[in-house]
Structures are given as C-alpha cells and as structure tokens.
C-alpha cells in the first residue's frame, strides 16, 4: 500500500495523503519490515510448491486444500495499490519484492501488479518497474492521484490530442473527476505500458459520471477498445461520503444519472466487450486470452492475503503466533503513525478481528457471487466442510425462489448468479445471508 497521491481526485475516498515530500527511504524500510513480519506470521512456506502472492494492499497465498496441514505454501501474487504506487521509485518496489521472496516462496511466474497513474507512467519509469520485478500494470481513472516525488512536480502538459483516449474518455470528464492527467497522456501511458507489458496491461474506466450520456459512454468504450490490452475494468461511479464529487451531486450542483441509464451503460459495456472476445469474469472485470487478474481472483475466492502499508487490509490465519482462525486485519491508517509502529513493533496492525465460521461463509458468499464462476462446491467445502451448498441454498426458501426466478444458479459446479442476477446481486445477498444465518 503506497498511500501517497499528488492530488486528490474528486471521487476517491481511499486512505490517501497528499504531502509535499515523502521520505521514501523510511517508507521503504517500513514496508520491507512489515512485509517480513506479516509473512512470518502467516507462515507462508519458503520452499517451492506452486504459485504465489504478496501484498501491496494484499497478497493472496495458494492454500493447501488438505485440512490437516493447511499452511499456505507460496505467495501467488503481489499487488502494489494505493494511493498512487507508481509515484514510488522502482527501487522501493524492488526492495519489497526482495523482502517477499526472502521471507516466503515467490515463484518466478507469480503475478506482480502495479497500479499506475498516467501522469507517472512514462516509458522509462515503467521500464524501471519492470526491471524491479513488476510484470503486470493496471492503469486508469480508478488509480488514485499522482506522485509525491519532491522533484518533477511539472504541470501536466496541455491537451493536444483530439482523438478519444482511454480510461476517462475526455478531458472534460477528467477534470470533473479531478484527475490531473489529460486524455492524451492517458493514451500515451497505455501505449507505453503495452509495449513493456504486452498482454499484461489492464485499464480502468469509469461510467455513470454526472452528465454522462449513453452515447458518450459508447464512444469512450469504443475508443478504449481500440487501445486496450487483454484486461479491462469498468466501474460504475460510486459516490462516496466525504468526497468533493459526492458533495456536488448531493448538493444539487451536478445531476445524478438515472438508474435505467446506468443499467443501460452496464449492459452496453457487457455486450461490446463480450463481442470483442472478453470474458465478463467479475461484476466489473473483463479479460480475454485468460488474462484474468490472479490477485483479485484470490480476493474474491476468499483466499488468504496479507496487507502491508498504511490502511492495508488482510485476511489470514496467523499460524506464526499460534492462531488457528482466519482474522480480518487492518493496518494503521495514518502513514507517520504507521511508520512509528512498524519501527517499534515490526508491524502496524491496528485492528484484528477473529472471523467466526459464519462470518467467513458470509464473505465467501458476498465475494464469490461477484464472479462468473461463482462459488464452487470445493471452495465452499473448505469453509463449510459439514454443510454443503445444496443443504443451505438448495432447500425451499429465498435462494430457491431466486433460482426459480432465474437470478441464481445452483448446479454441479456450484452456486453462481445468472448474468441478469449479477447486476442485481445487492438485492440477492440480503436474502441469501438471511437463509445462511438460519442454517
């Protein structure tokens, strides 16, 4: 978790800090130290077996399915999120990866993703990150802010391109979102990224912006399609409390797009991307040629991950200190406080809550149903060895009704949403949670 940004985007309510100068060496040392401590706690093995994980916000581990000895045996992915991690120097990224590889087994092919902001993603920089070990890039509107690098605070170059560029489709929209890059910069960044990370560059797009129409969205989508690689994330704008954009919308200064328009935009995106060969594998994520995000998949599959850095979240069993239950952990939010804690205790874990078996199943359900694969019988069995998916959701009740109405499917492979049901998941979940609680 790199918590610093150059600027606040109007829609973002993440844990982020805009500071004039960052003592990067100190932050780096703390990230390395915390990663080591937490990896030790999680008891991810150091010897070879399979894939990987990491941190950066999170790092899922491949979990050995056999209950007698379920220690995670390798890190399957590492994700550098933010903040704006592309503002950190490649050296910091390299140091963290070295720490991970030193504390646990990090296979050579493990996915190492960096979230990058077009304003800090020129070719030389990106090459530096690749050198450091990054092998996947996620660029876009979603990636917050920009670099706190003390040097190089050059203003964004004036917009030159008239062609519709990626992520946020046009400069007016970028300004609305408080983004500091221009459409042309974004386009340049994606092209540079694809050159360095062919087949492993993902782009983010936002839709449902105040004032956005079906047509502008379709055009933006087409433009993005012309530019993108094999992974696209499409997020409907969520107005978060405490953001400038939400204040403007709720204050009546900006219009809210009507429900039906949002649904249409979502449907259009699905149709356009599927036609272009993408698999709609999660509510907001699309991939072709198998370029799914390993890291985020493990998150939705409720695998274990540790969170390193200010405000990072984790879910793992702290075997290293005798823990036997999955815990929800949150690191200290404020960077300076977090650093002091890491320096004195080796980690900045602020909160840890043991998740009950029911709570774990609730998370499995809420996250798993976001994917096209849903929740497999096997995965459910890992969390609920004695009560099967059929026993909970195959009996008469809300879930059965939802299946009959065509929102939900329970079959030989597991429980999942139909395409229509996926868009309405938030209406389905309360019913399903009710039914789960009654078991």
């Amino acid at each position: 978790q790199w918590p610093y940004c150059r600027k606040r985007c109007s829609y973002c309510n993440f844990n982020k800090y805009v500071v004039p100068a960052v003592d990067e060496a100190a932050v780096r040392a703390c990230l390395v130290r915390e990663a080591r401590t937490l990896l030790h706690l999680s008891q991810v093995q150091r010897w070879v077996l399979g894939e990987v994980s990491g941190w950066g916000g999170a790092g899922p581990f491949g979990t050995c399915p056999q209950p007698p000895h379920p220690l995670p045996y390798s890190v399957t992915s590492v994700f550098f999120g933010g903040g704006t991690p592309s503002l950190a120097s490649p050296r910091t990224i390299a140091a963290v990866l070295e720490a991970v590889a030193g504390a646990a087994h990090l296979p050579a092919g493990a996915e190492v993703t960096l979230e990058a902001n077009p304003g800090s993603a020129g070719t030389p920089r990106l090459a530096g990150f690749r050198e450091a070990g990054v092998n996947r890039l996620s660029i876009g509107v979603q990636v917050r802010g920009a670099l706190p690098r003390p040097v190089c605070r050059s203003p964004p170059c004036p917009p030159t391109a008239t062609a519709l560029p990626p992520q946020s489709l046009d400069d007016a929209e970028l300004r609305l979102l408080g983004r500091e890059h221009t459409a042309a910069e974004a386009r340049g960044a994606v092209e540079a990224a694809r050159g360095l990370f062919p087949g492993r560059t993902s782009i983010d797009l936002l839709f449902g912006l105040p004032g956005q129409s079906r047509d502008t969205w379709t055009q933006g989508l087409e433009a993005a399609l012309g530019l993108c690689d094999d992974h696209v994330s499409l997020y409907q704008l969520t107005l978060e409390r405490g953001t400038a954009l939400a204040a403007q919308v709720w204050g009546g200064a900006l219009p809210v797009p009507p429900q039906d328009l949002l649904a249409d935009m979502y449907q259009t995106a699905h149709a356009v991307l599927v036609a272009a060969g993408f698999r709609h594998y999660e509510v907001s994520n699309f991939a072709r040629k198998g370029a799914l995000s390993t890291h985020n998949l493990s998150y939705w599959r409720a695998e274990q991950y540790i969170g390193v850095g200010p405000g990072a979240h984790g879910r793992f069993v702290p075997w290293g200190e005798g823990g036997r239950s999955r815990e929800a952990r949150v690191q200290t939010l404020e960077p300076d406080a977090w650093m002091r804690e890491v320096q004195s205790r080796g980690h900045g874990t602020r909160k840890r809550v043991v998740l009950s078996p029911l709570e774990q199943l609730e998370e499995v359900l809420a996250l798993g149903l976001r994917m096209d694969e849903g929740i497999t019988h096997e995965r459910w069995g890992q969390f609920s060895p004695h009560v099967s998916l059929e026993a909970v959701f195959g009996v008469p009740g809300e879930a059965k009704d939802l299946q009959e109405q065509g929102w939900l499917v329970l079959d030989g492979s597991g429980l999942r949403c139909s395409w229509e049901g996926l868009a309405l998941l938030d209406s389905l979940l309360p019913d399903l949670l009710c039914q789960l609680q009654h078991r």
Partner: protein
Amino acid sequence: MALAGRTAAWWARLRSPCPAAAPLCLPPWLPAGPVACERLYSSRGKEKLDMLTYPVESIRNFSIIAHVDHGKSTLADRLLEITGTIAKTDRNKQVLDKLQVERERGITVKAQSASIFYNHEGVNYLLNLIDTPGHVDFSYEVSRSLSACQGVILVVDANEGIQAQTVANFYLAFEAQLAIIPVINKIDLKNADPERVEKQIEKLFDIPIDECVRISAKQGTNVEKVLQKVIEKIPPPQCNTADPLKALVFDSTFDHYRGVIANIALFGGEIEKGHKIVSAHTKKRYEVNEVGILTPNEQPTHKLYAGQVGYLIAGMKEVTEAQIGDTLFLYKQPVEPLPGFKSAKPMVFAGMYPVDQTEYNNLKSALERLTLNDSSVTVHRDSSLALGAGWRLGFLGLLHMEVFNQRLEQEYNMSVILTAPTVPYKAILSSAKLIKEYGKAEITIINPAQFPDKLSVSEYLEPTVLGTIVTPHEYIGKIIALCQDRRAVQKDMLYIDEHRVMLKYLFPLNEIVVDFYDALKSLSSGYASFDYEDAGYQAADLIKMDILLNGNPVEELSTIIHNDKAYATGKFLCERLKDAIPRQLFEIAIQAAIGKKIIARETLKAYRKNVVAKCYGGDITRRMKLLKRQAEGKKLMRKIGNVEVPRDAFIRVLKRQTDK
C-alpha cells in the same frame, strides 16, 4: 350532565362572597405562619393531614379551560407557585403535565388535580384545581373534570382572542351551570389587545366586560387576583359531611405497585382507611387502604370530607373497576348514585398488530397496562390473515391515536403496525341471513374488512360532527371552499367582532379525521381554529376501497370512503405508495380497486442494476455490515405477496402533509 346537589349558580348571578368562618388553619404539615414554606411537590413521607380543618364552606373546586396554547398550564404553574404548593423555580413548566409526551408536545393529555391551600382575608381555603386537556380530541376529559367542579377559569389569549375551543369549552361549562371566571392572558405580549377580547367575550358569551381579569401568567401579573375571584365567585360545593358517603370517581390512574388510584370528589359524608365501600356500578366491595389529596403528588390524609377532592386506593386491580363516573358508597348504606356520564366515545378506529407475532404477548401486556391509565381507548381483539393476531383500538381522535402510539414506544418500547384509521360507520342490513348472524339489523363497522356488501345492505350511515371554526375574515373564502370539498354543510356564520368570524359546519367525521385540521391551519396561516362535537349519523353512499400490490390486497390500507372521493383518494394513495416502496427485482403494479374494478394504477419498475461496482483492495468489513443490516431489515419487512414493504411505508402514505 348536571349532578345532584350541585349549586345551580351561574357566574352572572353569583354574588355571594364566600361564607367565611371555619376555624383558621394551615396545611397541617406546615409550621404556623401565613405563608406556606417552600417545598417541592413530592409527597412528604407518611405524615397524614387532618382534612377536618377544611369545612365545605372553605372549599372551591374549579378547572381551568382554554383553547390550546392560551396558557392554561402556565397559569396552573403560577397558581401552584404563589400558594406555595410547589417551590418557585424556573423549572416549573407544565408541572401538571407528567407524561413525557405531554411535555414534548406541549399539550395536556390527561387531566391532573392539585389541592392548593390559600389564605384570603384571614381565612384558609382549600382550592382544588383540576387541570384539563387542551386538545379537541380530549374534550371528553374536560367535561368529565368539570363534573367535580363548581366553577371554571376560562382563559383566553389576549392576542388570539376567542378560538373554536374557547367556544366549545365555554358551552361545556355553561351547560354544566358552573361559575365562569373569564381571564385574558398574555397581556404582556406586544400585540395583546385585551379590549377587543373583552368585547368578543361580551358579544359571544354575554359576560360583562368588567368581569374579565387581565393577567400575564408567564410574568405572574394579576394571578393573585384570579385566586381572589375563585374564592369570591365560585360557590363552595353544596353537601354535608353528616350525609352518607357519596363519592364520584372522576378519573383514575394505575400504579404498578399500588393498583388503581381513583380520583374522587365527595358529594356527601366522609371516607377513611378501613371503610368498607361498594361500587354502585359493579356492586363490588372494597376496603379502603388509603385516602389523600393531590398536591399534585399523592399526600395521604386521615380522612376526606364532603366537598373535598382527593384520591382513594382500595385494592382495585383494574381500572375498569374504578369506572369513571361511578359512585362509591359505604357498605350497607347505599345512596342514590350520581348520574355519572356517558363513557368516552371513540371516534377513530385502527388495527394494531405486533411487527412480529412472537411479540404478541409483550404487546398485549403493554396495551393492558397503558389502557389502565387511558380508559378512553377501547380494545377489541382482532386478527387478520395478513397481519396475524392483533387488536382493533378505538381512539378519541387522531392525535389521541398518535399520543397513544408514542406512549407505547416511549413507556413500553413497543413498535407496532397500525392500519389506516377509520371512523365507526353503520350499515342497515337487508339480508335476513346477515341480520340473523349479527342478531340485529343495524351494525357498526369499525374494521373495513367487515364492510358488508351493498347487496345485503339497505343503507349505509356515516358519523357526523358539528364543527366550529373561528377565523379572521380574510380566510373565509378559502375555508368555505375547503369545507365544501370535505362534503360539509354550513349551519351558521357569525361575526364575533369586526375581524373574526365563527363558522359552524356539519361534517362527515371521516372528512376531518386525518388532515382537516392541518389543511385549515395551513390555508389560514395558522390563524383559524377548529373544534367539533358529535352530531349523530347520516345516510351516505359508502364503498370499500382496496389497495393492491401485484394483485394482493394491502390490508393496512383498506378503507371505507364516500363514493365521490374514491377516484381522487385511490389515485393519491397509489402515487404516494410508489414513492414509499423501494424498487425490487420485479415490476410492481400498485392499484386501487373497488371490488374487482381497478380505479387507479401506478407502476414501480424493477431494479435493473444495483450491484456495487468495486469490491477489492479495500476492506469488505464495512460492506458486510451493511449487507447484514439489510438482511436484518428484511425480517422486519412486511411481505405482501412477494413484494417487500418497509414497515413505516403505510404510515408515511397515510400521513399526508398537504393535499395534492
């Protein structure tokens, strides 16, 4: 309503000064001295007072009556203060309003009594003040309280002048032949115009201008003079301690530890602990445990004597045993019972059901306990297919219903489903089968579910009220239009001064029950006032209207309405429901129907997308909490067919702020 033995004295003729005499005495718990020392109004341990020192001649029983907000409770506070009944502090605000809801809403709901000791020209008097509710819904309580009095203080706001309730209250007192002391309050206000108010009083009530007392209860101006008037103008009760005991129960409350506490007025004889008494109404026998006066908390005394007002505890377990209006007498010394009064007549009925049937027993006991203190609520067990087991409750009016509901929540922590309020309609049956079933041809319908079909009815009847409206004349046009829209018929129109008009209309009760008062207030900028009294039944073209959600009736919203109003009401309810029900997975048809005929329809479109876009990176703990709260909320949703409706949606629909 006149009670046996009451002095037939009207204010105008009353000139007799108090028949002085009676040995001087102070409240016995006070040290000798002319002025009562400061004390809080808590009862003082078990010291007992000797009430023999207050013979009939030195007793005055009176009420304060007024339009709402004209300063009745403030005047009561001042009277208690200047007589030393309560300590004088800034905190004395609505001392007699003991219920939380009374203080919150600034209205008196329940009559309270306080005995005041006051020395005037060397004579110690016992003044019994019976505070009365100020809202039209509770006018029944007013008339009940008046039965224990010989006079009233009629308070009129010097700024607002005579209002509808002033008129209604005046006539209650006038018809009971009570002495009336007109008091013009709030003379300290900038816009006060006491002369104008005095002229109104003279014109409308035929009371000479010089009889009026101008005061400011808030500042205490001239309050002492009011006390003097009470002593001079109100006659003492006419009764004799030597007669056999004859006590009127004029109110009752329930105490969880001591059982029923009955407020009584003695019209003859005396009563003390150990006496065996009989209820004329139930013929049940009790032994008296305690008697006392209210100051305003209970203060035990050795005895109570003829003419005095106080309380009695006698092992009565239920408030129904202390029937209001009942006469108590000594065992084996029966007396002619006092005429008593009609029991409170519910004007509005609504179904009440537990949100969750497992709460049935808790709600039952809460209802039982609350009705112990509010016997004007009628309770019938009821059940419905949709809502399960519950009750049909009768209230004096909509405010009463709200207050009752609020007390259930505040005092018993219960939340409930309330159905649409309905008034008691009647039907004259023509079907022999139905007549046999009911055992009579005329039935009262308090539940729309029991509305008999037109085919088996020769005539439907609806209750009516005679409404009084007092308004500045500039609003007359709008008010007449409003009344006509409410199917009202004008009966009278009178200028009470150059600017103010009093209108009388005969209204169908259901037209005023929900929102008439609000509509009247809003179109007259708050200046018009309204009161009403029962005016019997009239024939009406009634129908039952159902509200359907995807074809399933919503029982809470079934209503009986006049045929002429069906379309407008149906359309209105459908529109409001559309806003009150959240979108769901499927389209919802919201319809109003009369029998099989659909008269209005709205469509609530299905949700198409609501899944949260982003779910990674951040912690999902917060999101899980939200989802679980929604799952909890589901359990509280009312399911009609497969449509889920938030529990408060119907109430929100019924509570219309303004007419569209």
